[in-house]
């Protein structure tokens, strides 16, 4: 993880802020990118990815365009697509640069054109694997398949920060949802860096099927943390694997950042509806 990189001095890492081709940069996504960059002394690189299909559609007379509020613009609506993309990038770059300058974080912005996942993978590969990708586009309940494809396609990264549709908060404890002990040391280091940067606490939430499992997990976690600053540990019994109950427990802790592994109860591979409904802060997902 970047925490490891920052500590070892191998490289400073990079926060890739993946932007859709619109002029608006979601403020919380931008703030999350800056928060992570702050925590690891990294730079923010905003990459606006222009879907090549939009330009192809512009060249096809049968394509039609609609405005955001549903007004039919016909094909003429695509006539100025190049200029629209140019303007969108200029606006987004200005927003990123202004925010990063205010936060004293180095920032770059560029635009790439092609298939979105490939372009993001390429952007990460250029300076990987010490990247954290922050997705500006909000997570959708129906986006499980898309998230799966993203994690399959983009490998030169150590984690993805994403926001749910109800995201509204960056302030609060850093909560690490621990469903298994893989990657535990890295998760602990990352959470610690984020907590120091945000002047907040780390809470480890152990999620297991039963008390025995949770007891074993806690013992392992305590052994891993031996010699380190003690952290609050909470146990959650995930009876019958109910994701929504686990998410609700996490939500009630009002986290400012949530760290979780992909494929568990918190971020299942097949259904994101629970996390979308309960996620009020940025979510850092690791494989």
């Amino acid at each position, binding site marked *: 993880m970047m925490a490891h990189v920052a500590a070892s001095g191998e490289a400073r890492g990079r926060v890739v802020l993946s932007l859709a081709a619109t002029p608006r940069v979601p403020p919380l996504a931008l703030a999350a990118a800056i928060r992570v960059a702050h925590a690891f002394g990294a730079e923010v690189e905003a990459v606006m990815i222009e879907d090549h*299909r939009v330009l192809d559609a512009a060249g096809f007379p049968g394509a039609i365009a*609609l405005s*955001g509020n549903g007004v039919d613009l016909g094909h003429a609506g695509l006539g100025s697509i190049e200029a629209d993309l140019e303007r969108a990038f200029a606006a987004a770059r200005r927003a990123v640069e202004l925010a990063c300058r205010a936060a004293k974080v180095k920032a770059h912005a560029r635009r790439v054109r092609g298939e979105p996942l490939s372009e993001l993978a390429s952007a990460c590969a250029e300076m990987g694997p010490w990247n954290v990708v922050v997705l500006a586009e909000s997570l959708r309940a129906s986006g499980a398949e898309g998230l799966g494809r993203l994690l399959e396609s983009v490998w030169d990264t150590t984690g993805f920060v994403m926001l749910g549709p109800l995201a509204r*908060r960056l302030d609060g404890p850093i909560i690490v949802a621990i469903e298994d002990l893989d990657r535990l040391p890295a998760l602990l280091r990352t959470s610690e860096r984020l907590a120091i940067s945000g002047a907040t606490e780390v809470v480890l939430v152990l999620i297991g099927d039963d008390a025995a499992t949770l007891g074993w997990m806690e013992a392992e976690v305590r052994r891993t943390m031996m010699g380190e600053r003690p952290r609050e540990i909470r146990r959650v019994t995930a009876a019958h694997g109910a994701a929504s109950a686990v998410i609700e427990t996490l939500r009630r802790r009002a986290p400012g950042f949530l760290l979780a592994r992909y494929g568990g109860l918190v971020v299942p591979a097949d259904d994101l509806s629970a996390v979308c409904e309960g996620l009020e802060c940025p979510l850092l997902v690791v494989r």
Partner: protein
Amino acid sequence: MFFRRGKKDKAEAPAETDADEPVDSASPEAPTTAEVAKRADTPPAGPPAVIHLSSSARSAQQPASGVSGAGVDGLGFATTADLEPTTAPVGQDKALEALDFGISMTGALDYNILVSGASASAALAFTRQAIAPRAAGEAGPAEWVLVAASSEDHSLSSVAVPAGRGNEFCRAVAAAAEEFAALFAAARTGDDFEARARTIEIEWRAGRDGALARLEREAEEQAIAILRTPTGFAMAPMHDGRIVKTDVFAGLPPSMQADIRERIATLEKRLTAILAAGPEAARQRRSALRELIVATAEPLARLVLDDVRSAYAGDVAATAALAQIEQKLVAEALVDAVEPGAGAATDLAGTHRREDAAPRWSARPPLVALLGEAPSGSGAPVVEDLVPTVASLLGRLDRTPASGLRVTPGSLHRANGGYLIVDAAALLDEPQAWVALKRALLSGRASVGVPTAQADHAEVPLALKVIVAGSTEACLHLAELDPALSALFKVEIGLAETAEASPALRSDLARGIAGLVARFGLRHLEATAVRRLIEEAGTWAGEPGRVCLDASRLADLAREADCFAARDEAKLIGLIHVERALAARQARGVAWPGRLPG
């Protein structure tokens, strides 16, 4: 009864003679006690006597602190301490009658009173003297409280509360508002509220996002791409994950082309419907959130105001005001409600403020301010605005989120429920003040602070009598400048300048002079001094057998005489001190016995 010791004084008083004349008050030098005594024994060189009272010379020879004996001066008293003082105007019976008529025209903002006299000071003195006892006998007015619902919507309203209870009311409402803020903040972060708010939010998002996701899936199945563009959406046919090229499309059979076009048109209609429904869905979401907030805030607002309501039970105005405040508490809660998921405002420097810990509103409770106190039992207020300006009439209203509502009441507000005395000449000097006064009287409402397009302002209904007092010239000039004057000041009172110096009038004047002692904190006057003052009033009248009724001039002379008495460390104002005051006036070159302009 005029004189407290009247009977005894009368019995002991020597017969009044006509032999005594006033001293030569035109002497440029202030006379010494010996000089006054000497003059008293010599034939007069000054103007002829216009009032014939008992001798003053004898009294002047006596030490000022001495008591000459009751009735020694023929007035039936030794000093003003023996008299029943009066502050009522003397010799202005008709004017007082007219004034009483004007006052009795209650609830009529066009029956204000215009008092004109020989001089502004005479008119003002009459007005003060006449109004004060009448106002004291009246019931105190209600106090007005301004209530500001929020700093966003600029709404301010004024409510009347019982006299003397405004401060208590404001404190009680402020405490209730503070309690409401705490309770509402707790309720908003409570599980019940959060769960319901989240349900509304989730339903709203699920509606739009779900419909879009379903349409995207269907479009994909029909080989149509729905793409996001910088300004909205685009649709185009796809093949093998790529947009169909124009030449490829052109090579398709016409029926297939038509089929693709039809599919795009159908999907377009559905997408249009989904996007067009966005504003309506957002409106419904806002409406549902509003209902939730109102349902949460209303019982709390009612609860916190219960104690205040009990304290003011039976008071219709206060109860109505509390109902209004209750509504405003709820409105305030609505205005400042942070909508979940509306987008987080985050400090990009990395330090983040809690968005949902407590509503921002809790830091600034509704603002309540008292618009001038009217202590209970103190009668109707009498306010003088002798240098009226727009600001002095309307006061000032400052409102910031940090400091809350700050109100400086204007003279119109302070006099509301009572009397406002304004100098006519000053209105001539400040035409904007006259316009502001006229506007207030015509509309029946007084703005708090100078109203501007940008600033918040509130108004209070007016129920007062405005009395414009001034010299005849000033009043005429004012009437010439604006005919509206006579329409708004329908009671015109012309003061009598002089009156026949009857014994009754002289007695009244003596009592009036006694009244000056208390009013200005003067030493008591010996009878000879009183007599001399009345003689001077006769001189001012300029007509034998008459006396000038300008109380202010008498008061001034008495106060100046008191100054000389103070220099002598005398306990009483004697004739000598009046003479010195007159001489000093002469020496100062005061246009005396003529009048100063005014």
